[in-house]
């Protein structure tokens, strides 16, 4: 087990090295540079040249990459060209927002999707089944920004039930520790701040959950239907087990395996798919920030954020691999 972990972590090094080269070349080959975003319509070619020279962007790309790598090896990701803050600081201030949003969406998708998919399968061909199948089809098709707009129009603008933007009411002056606002509120016992942060997560959470929810409903339904037709279910029923025991011990547990795999795949998508949701809900996260940074050609932010996310993805995948052996004893990690 230990050797497995070490080996996987060592594999990370060449992977990150390759990624950094590809990313660096790709980003720097994009037309234009940060100087245009800095100067806007006020820029003259001379001013732009001066800024490029100052940022070292007029040097050969290998020299620039060398400079980047030297900093990377010192674990220094540099500073954003636009905000002049350290890239790691920017990341730590924004990533928690994205994680909170993704977790909320995942909770909504799972809490609603699995029961709904299960019920739909149990009542196959009945009204609930038709409604949930049609509903999940709409959930997959509907564009997130449109759903967000409608949700805000109904629940924020008209009913004033939920806030339409941001992560927390700024007048609360909540204490920040981890930048996970819900967690911070609980840690500092600022219950109103935690409740307000949860409250701000509801509408964006629903918007972001729409697609995963629909997928989970469909996968659960299909999986349960498949398991219901299996021999061991009939055997269990024939043995005289109560319906409840059959459902819980046999049907649900076996049906959950493909669902769990799907949820794992969806999680990665939630982190990267939050760009639109973050933008329309003015939610401070990495998605919207990366999108801005691309249009501003903020190379250090893009390089830094993507490298950090890559490391996180590898680590999460490692955890998932390790967890397989816990869930299913037949899987052995070597």
């Amino acid at each position: 087990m230990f050797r497995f972990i070490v080996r996987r972590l060592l594999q990370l090094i060449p992977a990150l090295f390759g990624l950094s080269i590809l990313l660096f070349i790709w980003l720097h080959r994009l037309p234009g540079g940060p100087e245009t975003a800095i100067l806007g319509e006020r820029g003259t070619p001379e001013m732009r040249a001066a800024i490029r020279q100052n940022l070292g962007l007029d040097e050969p790309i290998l020299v620039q990459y060398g400079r980047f790598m030297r900093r990377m090896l010192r674990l220094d990701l540099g500073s954003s060209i636009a905000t002049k803050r350290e890239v790691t600081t920017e990341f730590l201030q924004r990533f928690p927002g994205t994680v909170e949003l993704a977790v909320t969406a995942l909770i909504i998708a799972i809490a609603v999707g699995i029961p709904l998919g299960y019920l739909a399968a149990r009542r196959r061909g009945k009204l609930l089944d038709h409604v949930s199948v049609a509903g999940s089809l709409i959930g997959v098709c509907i564009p997130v920004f449109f759903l967000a707009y409608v949700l805000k129009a109904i629940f924020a603008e008209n009913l004033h039930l939920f806030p339409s933007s941001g992560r927390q009411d700024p007048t609360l002056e909540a204490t920040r520790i981890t930048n996970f606002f819900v967690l911070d509120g609980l840690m500092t016992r600022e219950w109103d701040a935690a409740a307000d942060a949860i409250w701000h997560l509801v509408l964006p959470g629903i918007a972001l959950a729409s697609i995963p929810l629909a997928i989970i409903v469909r996968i659960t339904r299909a999986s349960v239907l498949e398991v219901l037709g299996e021999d061991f279910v009939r055997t269990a029923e024939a043995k005289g087990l109560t319906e409840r025991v059959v459902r819980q011990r046999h049907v649900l547990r076996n049906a959950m395996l493909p669902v769990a795999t799907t949820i794992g795949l969806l999680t990665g998508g939630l982190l990267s798919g939050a760009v639109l949701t973050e933008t329309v809900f003015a939610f401070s996260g990495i998605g919207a920030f990366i999108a801005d940074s691309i249009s501003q050609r903020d190379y250090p932010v893009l390089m830094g954020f993507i490298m950090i996310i890559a490391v996180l993805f590898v680590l999460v995948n490692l955890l998932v691999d390790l967890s397989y052996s816990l869930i299913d004893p037949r899987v052995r990690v070597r």
Partner: protein
Amino acid sequence: MRAPRPKVAIAAVAVAALAVAGCAESDRGDSGESQKDTLVFGVAGDPKVLDPSLASDGESLRVARQVFETLVRPEEGGTKITPGLAESWTPDSTGTVWTFKLRSGVKFHDGTDFNAEAVCVNFNRWYNATGLMQSPDVTPYWQDVMGGFAKNEREDLPESLFKSCAAKDATTVDLAFTRVSSKVPAALMLPSFSIHSPKALDEFKASAIGGSADNVQYPSYAMEHPTGTGPFKFKSWDVANKTLTLERNEDYTTGPKAKLKTLIFKTISDENARKQALRSGDIQGYDLVGPADVEPLKGEGFNMLTRPAFNILYLAMNQKGNPKLADIKVRQAIAYALNRQALVDSKLPPGAKVATQFMPDTVEGWNSSVPTYDYNVEKAKQLLAEAGATNLTLRFHYPTEVTRPYMPNPKDIFELLSTDLQAVGIKVQGIPLKWTPDYLNATSSGSAHDLHFLGWTGDYGDAYNFIGTMFDRQKAEWGFNNPALFALFKQADSTADSAARFELYKQLNAEVMKFLPGVPISHSPPAIVFGKDVTGVKASPLTDERFATAEFKS
């Protein structure tokens, strides 16, 4: 008894949600009363830096305008120069030394005194800047206005316009310049020339820009400790929540104290999201209202303010890009071909006007009798025929993915303009480009473009900031060389007597419209909106809205 568990689970989730809803709703309701002296204002982007000496983006300057004050400032709701931290100012006979009489009894937010010495500390800080402080993206407005520094570290930097500062007594300060310039004193109203507390500048090492040229790091002063004399004090900047909080300066003496106790700027980059946040009560005002939202929001009772137009949208004709455009008759034909009134009526926000010259009429030097080119298809065709350009094809660049105060919908503008050009027989090859970086790069350099449109929003109330910026030297955007015109600009810039300079500006406007390097199209008034119960803010053409006067109607 079928499927009781899922039902129970769903019910539990629903109850929990309702419980949290009730709890949070009551919180919001409770704080509603005390929020009447707290205004949350929606802005389109995060400020970049809190030290306005280092800023050029509108959001940083908006914050600076509440926290800091300048020696002179624009009149409220206008562009004329009025007293700020200085009560009066006079040039000497040469026009190069200006004596400012300062207000007395003013204190910085850290309790130290504002005086002539403090003014000199600030000017010397900018002038004596070294190292990274000389980077063009670190001190953009100083370099734009003053040119260079005491010791220029880059070859392309010009000699500094600023020469020295002398504190004659506590309330009298002399600013000396190397030559007469139209920029003095008008440019000193820019927030970048805000006066900071010398103690705070020193304590938080405001000039110690860290890192390297490609990895600039601002000192803590610029991110956490801006210390001015303004009606609001900086309180906190919550980057993770995209909000910046200011609180009332209780010791403010320059004018009436702020009516709001707390002013919060909240970043909502999406225009639609800002509108929805206003309607749902998250914010009590926002800037950069979409032109299509002006009338509906007004109809709903929101307090919509229209800024006097302080911008220009123009069609540029690149004489180097296409030799045919070097023929004045072709340029005139294009000007006659454009139905600018129809464009203004159909595509620009209410209150927009057709432009007759490259600056708005709110600035001294505007000329009511410049040559004009009213929509005339026949005349356009005739001029093209005379110029032998009946079979003209023009590469017309237009930007995508952008709205600017002077240009809310570039694609619509392009379509109308190109239809007009086609109507007089000019073939148009439309070239859409992404605003940044492609469009800005293409239009300001090279010879790949024939026509494009672009605009300018004035920084301060002086004609040179409009027409001088565009036409006082050879620029790739226009591709012409007109030494006589450039000389006249130089003469205007170095005329100390303001009345004489305004006359020269009028002459310049006439000359420019005669030479017709491009076609001025329109001036658009940007809108800013406040909640139904918020009053007291006066819209400013320079976006110098003063939140100190904002209050909630009881």
